């Protein structure tokens, strides 16, 4: 059993959420550049699909439902066999959500 004061707990939660956003931002940026580098095709590959599915599952758990919703749209586009342009657009929206969530987090105070 581990006990934390509410403030400490909130700070830990905020740190976790910040870390999550940093990680997913990096991941989505990488997906985005990979996808833009493709000359054709429909963006279908397992790694891409899994990454998007994982984002869909984790966003809400960290308290960012919009990330889940945006990732769900990209996943659906993938399932529908949409073209790369559509997928890139979906990732743009996803990146915007992540960056918006980052801006909404309280500023980390370091001493």
């Amino acid at each position, binding site marked *: 059993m581990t006990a934390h004061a509410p403030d400490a707990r909130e700070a830990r939660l905020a740190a976790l959420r910040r870390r999550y956003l940093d990680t997913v931002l990096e991941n989505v940026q990488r997906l985005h550049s990979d996808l833009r580098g493709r000359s054709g095709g429909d963006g279908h590959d397992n790694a891409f699909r899994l990454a998007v599915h994982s984002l869909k599952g984790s966003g809400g*758990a960290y308290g960012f439902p919009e990330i889940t919703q945006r990732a769900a749209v990209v996943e659906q586009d993938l399932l529908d066999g949409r073209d790369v342009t559509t997928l890139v657009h979906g990732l743009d929206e996803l990146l915007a959500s992540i960056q918006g969530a980052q801006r909404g987090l309280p500023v980390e105070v370091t001493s």
Partner: protein
Amino acid sequence: MARSLSFFSRRISVRVIGIAALTLLATGMAANLAALTLENLVTSESSLAGGQLVSPAALPQSDLAVQVRRQMVLALFVMLLLVPILALTLRATVLAPLQRLRRQVRALAHGDLESAVTVESDDEIGRLAAAVEQVRVNLHESFEDLFRQNERLSQLDQMKDEMLGQASHELRTPLTSIHGFVQVLAGGKAGPLTELQEEVLTMVGRNVDRLRTLVCDLLDAERVDKTPLNSTPVAVEDLLQEVIDDQQVSAREKGLALNLAVPDHTRVMGDKERLREVFTNLISNAIKYTDYGRVSVRSLHTHDRIVLEFQDTGIGIASHLQPHVFDRFFRVDDQRVQGEEGTGLGLTIVKRLVTRLNGMISLSSEPGRGTTFRVTLPRAADEQTAGATAARTSILVATPDPLVQTVYGATLTHDRFDLSYASSPSGVLLRTRRERPDVVVLALGNARPDELVRRVARGADMARVHFVIIGGRPLRDDDDDTTDPVELAVRSASRLPVEAGPRDVLAVIEARLGLSAAPATPASTKGAA
């Protein structure tokens, strides 16, 4: 099949465009090739004819080449116009019917047997649709037939119950007389008996007693659905103590310990005498099938329910027999208990009574190690208030991501919560069986969480566990009146959208438990399976 059709139609779409483009390209190339060939032919003939080079433009045949080229260019333009028309026609005649068929097959796959599968077409697609429609009609008729048979069987079952009840009632009176006469004879009141006569009378008396027990149980089983029940607060601890006192002699004869661990404030809503019957049946049954060790009764409390566990260290019940334990006339076929008397109706009566008292009963058992019956009953209102500050709620959070587990740990903070975690479906099964949590949160990203709920509900205390499912497909609306406890567990699960987070889960659990207090201290935690 719907997915295959979707794939098929997408492929056709791509092919139509491809064929159109290729046709266009081929037409253009053919036009140029034909014009060039003709021009070359004319040039070479004219050169050979005069023995000197003559300009093709000067020859009358070159007009033919120009005309051919013009014709070909015209043909190309015509093709340019025709190809989109061809593509649209193909879309209307092939793609649209395929998409319609796909929608209809998808509806069929989801159980819609009422809507006909119709595609107005004489081609292969039309024939495919007709074949699917035939399958739908056959399925529909089979279901209708099953439904009618089921109805008929239910009626027959009811008639059989009524006949059995009537016959039992008719049998009881003469059996009582026989029992009385046997006692008169055995007591020597009708004259002295030889040793053989006494022995025979003892056997007759024993069998008459067995018959009377059977008839009484049959009557009870028939009556249990019809007798009106009271619903008043019942002090469970007092009632259980009385039942245990009554059973002490039997337990002592077998050297068994009878333990009771139920708080004295525990009160449920129910009919005291019917509950006495339930408890007596369960405890006497436990004693009957236990040779060594103990029989113990304990209680677990949730916000609105009391779970009573009747646990023994007896012979146990094999897993393949467990689903039949509550069936009429079911008896464990074990050499160790062959001498025990019983009709196999006791647990049937218990289950019917508990169900009528708005409760549920389940069991878990391991051969050679014992059996636990769990009876879940509604908690009396004042009991709910009195126990509100004491009861704790155990929550199992299932999510594969350790960091998400941490977020849940930091969010589901309440001094009444005990948290534990699982990372996979097998972990959920393991922990639910070991810990029997009050709430299971499933955030495994599994497309079929209901299956996991069913597996858990079959093994754990299905009445007590509440499931919160994040994501997953919505439940279909059919079979709303199911009484199967496993299906009830699935249907009563709280369902949250995929974007729901720990705060939404907290709100659901608090609403369910009737908690309104703000989060206080973090819950105690256990490791992940």
